[in-house]
């Protein structure tokens, strides 16, 4: 008799519970599918400032070197033993994956892909150092560096941070903490996405293809010109370049 008395309320509660449960489930917003698992994509791309660096062959490397190419850009230094070599091995994997599948150059607009390593340690990374270093990982990669204020003017607007840290070693007396993300620069010289560590190169290659499919056209077909944040006295030069 006692048990029967409890059956109804218990049953009622159970039904209520199931009802609440299912209604919550129905109202659930479907979880967004992560379209690019390895990448953070900017809704509004950030134009890189104008800059003048020197590449591993001693030739000037400027923002125009980013025009009509997709660029993987990575900031580091050659005295970096762990993070930078592994990052360059990963970038080499990505580059190799594109070559292997025959799409290093995008088909529709003929836009190529390049890898640019920028040293934030101009004090120790000379042109010769950079040449030998970068060729070890991939002979097609570009390495560049420049004056500290030029490097800072480039890194600051795109959120790349680095700082010198004293080491224990008296000979090489500092290390550099630095951002380890790969930046993806579009063919108009704008930061479009970045790949944060830990890097999964196969996934990055896949996501890069998707990003390229989606965004190459707007860079090549529209009237948007290759543009960048103007820094004072470059304006004349920019006009000259745009006239070409």
């Amino acid at each position, binding site marked *: 008799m006692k048990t029967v008395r409890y059956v109804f309320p218990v049953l009622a509660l159970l039904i209520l519970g199931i009802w609440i449960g299912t209604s919550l489930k129905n109202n659930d917003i479907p979880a967004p599918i992560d379209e690019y698992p390895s990448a953070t994509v900017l809704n509004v791309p950030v134009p890189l400032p104008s800059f003048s660096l020197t590449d591993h062959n001693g030739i000037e490397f400027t923002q125009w070197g980013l025009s009509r190419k997709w660029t993987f850009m990575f900031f580091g230094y050659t005295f970096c033993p*762990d993070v930078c070599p*592994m990052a360059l091995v990963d970038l080499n994997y990505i580059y190799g994956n594109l070559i292997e599948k025959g799409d290093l150059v995008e088909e529709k607009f003929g836009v190529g892909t390049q890898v640019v390593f920028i040293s934030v340690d101009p004090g120790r990374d000379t042109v010769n150092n950079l040449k030998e270093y970068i060729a070890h990982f*991939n002979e097609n990669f570009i390495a560049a560096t420049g004056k500290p204020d030029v490097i800072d003017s480039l890194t600051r607007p795109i959120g790349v*941070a680095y700082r010198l840290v004293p080491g224990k070693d008296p000979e*090489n007396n500092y290390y550099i903490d630095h951002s380890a993300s790969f930046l993806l620069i579009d063919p108009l010289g704008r930061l479009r996405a970045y790949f944060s560590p830990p890097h999964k190169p196969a996934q990055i290659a896949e996501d890069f293809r998707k990003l390229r499919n989606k965004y190459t056209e707007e860079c090549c077909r529209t009237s948007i010109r290759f543009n960048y944040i103007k820094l004072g006295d470059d304006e004349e030069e920019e006009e000259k370049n745009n006239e070409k």
Partner: protein
Amino acid sequence: MKSEYRHLTLAVLSVILCLSNVSAEDLILVHEAWMLEAPTNARVIAGYMTIENKSSRSRRLIGVSGQDFERIEIHQTEMQGDIMRMVPMEELEIPAGSAVSLEPGSYHLMLISPRSVPKEGEAVNLELQFDSGYTMHIKLIVRAVHRGKTMKHFH
């Protein structure tokens, strides 16, 4: 009767001594010791391995040396947001019955100022010093960067 006991005691004693020798030396194992083939002008190279402590006591790696390098430090790469920091460590603890991996983006040996940069397939000799007083001799194998085509990822 007396001498028999003495023999037995000696036997037991020698077994115990033997065991303690084993525990001092053989209960630390090093697997997969490697380094990435570095550019010929590299001034620092990272060394990786897994150190396993099969003993019942915690062990600490307190120093590393190698004739091919000016000095060797124990480091940890730490991620703060997307910033990679390298933090020198005085020692590395290998807890009893467990293994610690030195791998890219984590703990590593920092091999400073190589006398010459070793090539793929070569090996470099290192000595690991533990707090127990035990020095272990190991070989680090040099692995290549595979250029231009898909390669095995080390993670």
